[in-house]
């Protein structure tokens, strides 16, 4: 199990997860993608604790794809904690949600989300969207490099 993936996909819908994985891998945009099913798992992963205590803050994913409606801890909560901690706030987070609530949109940007995407309903459009965002965040965008910045063992 590779726990230093390029992308962390936080998605509770199996269907949407599969679709995203398919789209990203088709163009070989990402070397590795890791999927977690709820907000708590996402936080454990990114804060290197619980089941992911072996992970290091020095190898964050290049991108976090974050659904909003998640069990246990919801997406905005996850986002808030990520962007408020100096060890994780530089990690690019892209919200991918079916919600069309203006409230969620504004709150997301206020909390510092890097970009906000509404999942297209259409299958093909969904795939196209994921490819575009994959291309942008993994090829065009420059992720922050944090190797050596953090001392090896930290816990949440």
């Amino acid at each position, binding site marked *: 199990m590779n726990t230093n993936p390029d992308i962390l996909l936080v998605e509770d819908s199996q269907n949407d997860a599969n679709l995203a994985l398919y789209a990203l891998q088709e163009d070989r945009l990402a070397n590795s993608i890791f999927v977690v099913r709820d907000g708590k798992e996402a936080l454990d992963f990114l804060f290197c604790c619980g089941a992911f205590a072996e992970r290091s803050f020095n190898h964050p994913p290049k991108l976090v794809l974050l659904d909003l409606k998640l069990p246990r801890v919801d997406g905005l909560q996850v986002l808030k904690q990520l962007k408020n901690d100096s060890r994780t706030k530089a990690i690019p987070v892209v919200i991918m949600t079916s919600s069309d609530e203006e409230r969620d949109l504004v709150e997301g*940007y206020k909390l510092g989300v890097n970009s906000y995407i509404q999942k297209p309903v259409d299958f093909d459009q969904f795939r196209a969207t994921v490819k575009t965002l994959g*291309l942008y965040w993994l090829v065009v965008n420059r992720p922050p490099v944090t190797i050596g910045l953090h001392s090896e063992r930290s816990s949440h």
Partner: protein
Amino acid sequence: MKTIGTDATPIEVLLVEDSPGDVRLTREAFKDAKVHINLHVASDGAEAMDFLNREGTHSGVPRPDLILLDLNLPKKDGREVLEEIKKSPTLKTIPVVILTTSASDADILRSYSLHANSYITKPVDLDGFLEVVKSIDSFWLSVVKLPRGPNS
């Protein structure tokens, strides 16, 4: 999916860039954009803040939907502009894409720490540059849902 970016409601993009050559190139590149945009230009950091705060000669300008920000600017430096934008309760929701020649890890990390939304290093070759602008267009202006401010 998108209601903006049509002729009726073009996307307002603020380009903060001091090199006239780069400004022109960017304009040329956006000519092929999928969406309709209004490109505004500020050539230094102070002018950028005036524009965003709708001060001085920029009192009637629209609020940008997206900011493309160079780091090395005369007068007020791009890093300062970024900090001011992201500290302002009214301006912080505007996505800021750093578009700069610097490829230094320090600059990259610092920008993200100051809550830049994205960081792009300007390619040295023309084709590369055109590609980058194209992808800004296809992502930020097409796929992303941009926040519209308190009074758009």
